[in-house]
């Protein structure tokens, strides 16, 4: 039975996956400032940057404090081990990808954090703050200039730092637009375990 036929059998479910938005790669140009003026959705901690064919993302750029570069390389290892030990430790963030870089401007070290998520930045902020300590991610952020010292007790301070250092995209592209990581994993599981198909699709 073809996948398309199975989907038809499921009835009127309306996720973007079934609507076929994922079948055509798409690009989206974004106005300066990162928002479409009349369509700003409010999150608990402020306005939400719009969802694009590359889902949700943010890119933080911040200067590293002296010695910060070594700390980053060291804690990359810590995070690698944390994920190896517990592969689902970052599950609450609903991540697709993370890419962290260090680069130089006029001889000074800067850090860039890029994340592609299935959820807007705002939604799981408190959970994110809680898991940073558990995985060692906090020790990277604490090496950024201006990172609030009381971030553990004041999520709003952490969010302000992120919003102040976030560089919104002016263009994003997605090969399979809007599809969540969970949907992708489901589709892969279906492919791998055909006999459990109907259970997985519930």
């Amino acid at each position, binding site marked *: 039975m073809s996948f398309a036929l199975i989907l038809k059998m499921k009835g009127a479910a*309306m996720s973007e996956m079934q609507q076929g938005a994922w079948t055509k790669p798409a690009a989206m140009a974004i106005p300066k400032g990162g928002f479409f003026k009349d369509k700003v959705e409010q999150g608990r901690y402020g306005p939400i940057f719009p969802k694009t064919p590359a889902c949700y993302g943010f890119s933080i750029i911040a200067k590293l404090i002296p010695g910060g570069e070594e700390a980053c390389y060291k804690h990359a290892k810590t995070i690698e081990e944390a994920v190896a030990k517990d592969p689902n430790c970052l599950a609450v963030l609903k991540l697709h990808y993370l890419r962290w870089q260090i680069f130089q401007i006029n001889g000074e070290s800067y850090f860039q954090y890029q994340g592609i998520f299935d959820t807007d930045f705002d939604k799981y902020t408190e959970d994110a703050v809680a898991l940073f300590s558990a995985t060692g991610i906090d020790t990277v952020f604490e090496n950024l200039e201006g990172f609030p010292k009381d971030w553990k007790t004041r999520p709003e301070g952490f969010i302000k730092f992120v919003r102040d250092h976030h560089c919104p995209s002016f263009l994003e592209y997605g090969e399979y637009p809007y599809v969540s990581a969970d949907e992708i994993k489901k589709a892969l599981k279906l492919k791998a375990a055909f006999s459990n198909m109907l259970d997985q699709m519930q």
Partner: protein
Amino acid sequence: MLEFDDIQHILLTRTPALTGRYEFLSFRSASGGRAWLNGVLKTIQSAADVLASVDEDKRWVTVAFTWNGLKALGVDETSLATFPEEFKQGMPARADILGDTGANHPDNWVGGLASPDLHAIAILFARDEGERERCNTEHQRFLADCEGVEVLSSLDLLAIPPFDTAHDHFGYRDRLSQPVIEGTHDVPTPGSGPPLKPGEFILGYPDESGRSIDLPQPEILSRNGSYMAYRRLQEHVGKFRDFLRQHGDTPEEQELVAAKLMGRWRSGAPLVLAPDKEDPALGADMQRNNNFNYKEMDPHGYAVPLGSHMRRMNPRDTAANINRRRMIRRGATYGLPLPKDAPDDGADRGIAAFIICASLIRQFEFAQNVWTNDRNFHELGNERDPIIGAHDGTLEFKIPKRPIRKTITGLPAFTTVRGGAYFFLPGIKALRYLATLDVH
């Protein structure tokens, strides 16, 4: 460690009240507001008071204030600025975040609740109607003498018979899953998880993160206080019963539909433990009726649909940091019950509840924004909470079934938000501080 004599009773105790009244007040002058508070102060009981005398008492009073109310009483600007942002903004300003759109929008709220002039609530719970009327008469007489205090509106509350258990107008048994606070004498029922750190619900104590939230200033005003999100939900009983009849051919099928929407049968028996048939004995058994989880016992939602009310309001083992997302619920039903086979008479009936927590943004607003009204909850797509979500008739409800799930489309709105507010619930010392602000 818990200062029972400084915490207002509503946070830590339940009272045997069958009726009550909420009085929503506005203070035209600071001195007037303070004089009123001074007058009612002696009727406001702490948790210690109620624990000692609940069997003899016939009435229980709680008082709380909006941020505008604290301002109206004369709290200084510097102190006001230390309160949390969402509390300062007030619930109507957070409508988009909470999903209070369409018919639920604050523009449609009643009783002056959406007005910036809403300053205080006086909650009366009474053992019986006679006592409620006696207290109300006394309070109205007092209010008439209080210059500068205006009644914006009021709401009489009424338990729905039978009175042996609490239930709402839709007939669901309530109050089966409640957090227990460490340091109280309450024992969590099996499956409810361990007692939680008091700071999750009371200001001035460590919470589940191990730390205490920064106290708004001055400390005497905020310590032993909390926040309450008030929600008045009209329940459209006729529509609900029509829906059950539409989607179930027999009474048993209709009961199952009702159960699938909520996550429990109307007796309170949880679907996880009784997936096919109602089980009133299970519903009544506090040692069994909350002893279940989802990830282990019902991962795909064959018993409890992923989008059902109960599964959204407490995702148990399927959500992270669930101990940081719990809330204390208090409140009551209002309006006369609709007789069993009567057509809807259009009367206003529903629930008027308080959600108490130490952080409105982290606890109440998270639940509304991420669990109740988010279409991405569990990737369901075109669903919101079937009981309390914002519905415009275009959403659906998926009931997992073998071989193919059942999808109900065009879910009507069974409830409408008719009002709400963010209140600060001060401790006893704080109330005395507020009543004598002009002296400080």
